């Protein structure tokens, strides 16, 4: 293979040794990618403002309280981002139904399938440095799928439900939202303070996910046999080799 054969203009012999017939698959459709990044932004805003709602920043003397709305704006940002998260999640559920089958991975976890569990443990061994090479997947690998389900599908659902319940208290007990989510308080011992506490713990659950998610995405992008980070931008999964398992 030479420069003319490969179509690459600046290759030398050592570069050519790594060239393979790269395949690419369109996996994440536009709504999924859009949701991912809007969600990421909303979660960032929610974590920062949510933390401040639990532990407010130092008191500020900008103006008389009538003209100063610092904490009000923090709460507004939290509620606005919360609604974006909640409506985005509904949109994501819609796309799970009408999108391609990869869009269903977050909501359909085949825990009853032995082969699926074997692949989960294969991934676990890969992360424990006990496997020489990972497997190739077009969508999420089973371990990633399990993590997404626990942290995002369940975690974000929990945050949306408890969040809307707490928000409905501000709207008042006559509000439609309270009629929809008032049961949350019954579930948490009839004391709204408990709901605040668990909503706060939920934030840390999501923060832990963020740490692991970003690390693993970058690590896989470098060390696995497929693209990861760019896939969520372009929607296309590319593979670094043509080898079978």
């Amino acid at each position, binding site marked *: 293979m030479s420069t003319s054969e490969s179509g690459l203009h600046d290759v030398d012999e050592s570069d050519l040794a790594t060239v393979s017939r790269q395949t690419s698959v369109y996996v994440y459709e536009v709504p999924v990618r859009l949701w991912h990044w809007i969600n990421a932004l909303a979660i960032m805003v929610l974590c920062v403002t949510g933390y401040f709602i639990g532990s407010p*920043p130092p008191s500020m003397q900008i103006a008389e309280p009538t003209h100063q709305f610092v904490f009000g704006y923090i709460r507004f940002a939290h509620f606005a981002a919360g609604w974006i998260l909640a409506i985005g999640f509904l949109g994501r559920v819609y796309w799970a139904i009408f999108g391609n089958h990869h869009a269903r991975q977050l909501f359909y976890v085949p825990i009853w399938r032995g082969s699926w569990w074997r692949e989960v443990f294969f991934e676990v061994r890969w992360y424990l*440095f006990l496997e*020489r090479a990972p497997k190739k997947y077009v969508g999420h690998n089973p371990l990633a799928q399990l993590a997404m389900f626990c942290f995002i599908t369940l975690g974000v659902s929990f945050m949306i439900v408890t969040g809307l319940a707490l928000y409905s208290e501000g709207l008042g007990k006559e509000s439609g939202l309270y009629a929809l989510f008032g049961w949350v308080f019954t579930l948490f011992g009839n004391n709204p303070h408990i709901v605040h506490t668990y909503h706060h713990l939920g*934030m840390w659950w999501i923060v832990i996910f963020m740490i692991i998610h970003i*690390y693993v995405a970058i690590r896989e992008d470098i060390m696995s046999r497929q693209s990861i980070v760019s896939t969520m931008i372009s929607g296309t999964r590319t593979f670094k080799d043509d080898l079978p398992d």
Partner: protein
Amino acid sequence: MHPKGDIEGGPAVSQIETFYDVMRRQGITRRSFMKYCSLTAAALGLSPAMVPRIAHAMETKPRTPVIWVHGLECTCCSESFIRSAHPLAKDVVLSMISLDYDDTLMAAAGHAAEAAFEETIAKYRGNYILAVEGNPPLNEDGMFCITGGKPFVEKLRHAAKDAKAIISWGACASYGCVQAAKPNPTQATPVHKVITDKPIIKVPGCPPIAEVMTGVITYMLTFDRLPELDRQGRPAMFYGQRIHDKCYRRPHFDAGQFVEAWDDENARKGYCLYKMGCKGPTTYNACSTVRWNEGVSFPIQSGHGCIGCSEDGFWDQGSFYNRVTDLTQFGVEANADKVGMAAAGVAGAAVAVHAAVSALKAAQKKTQTQTSKEEA
């Protein structure tokens, strides 16, 4: 205490005086009576058109017999109740309800009191209201609270059997309060978990506001039914909003101006007590509107945060002085931030170590193989 009417040949209630009769007998003028009716209408959030209805009800309806029993409690509900500053209430409400039995307030004691208890139940079967202050402890067959020589839980069940409705006074009867706080050795149990076949209205608080107590009773007597209740069975007119929703310090909350320490300048200026652990945002009660002691003040106005005394299990929600309170579920005393930060720290450290090992492994692989392609 109540007139000894003949119960033969007609409903017993017809023998009882009306509220109006009692008020007039006690020297209250009609003018004062009408004032009382309009103030009651205002307190209950009713339109002025309801004033004649209240007056009519008070003039014609027989007084409702009330049995007021005391379980495990501190009597702060009674103390609050007798301080009701609502016009005429402290003189009238005790007369207008026919308080036939209340072991702390009645003149009779001992066997005479217990006889009055039995007599009232027998005479007004199905017509009296049972007001419960405190709660029954169920452990050791209820032996942790004995009244009249018997476990209180037996007395409660006995009195509840023929009651028209039950009022759970205070946090004790409504939720259990301090004696039901973890680990709850006596197994103190709120009334609604012992009596399950009667309409129960919860009037929580430690104690509830006096005017709220008299307001609830007045509503029940005037309209002969329970007021509108929320999901938890509390009267919506008094427990429909949070302290926070009507707090006069709310502008400081929205501005982000908080008391940072008890003795700081912000405390002197009356800033929001949120950072000092005020539970106003999670507490449903009328303190910030009705206030206490003739509307003089309420905790936040006095410079102390709300402790959330009218919410379920408020003793078990960690410190009164923290916003993000300690959790007990993890076996150690730590709040959500400590638990979360520790977990996130572990995750972060694990990620760092994993990244380092990954890099070492990759480097090792590179040196072991001549071409990277084989391993790619």
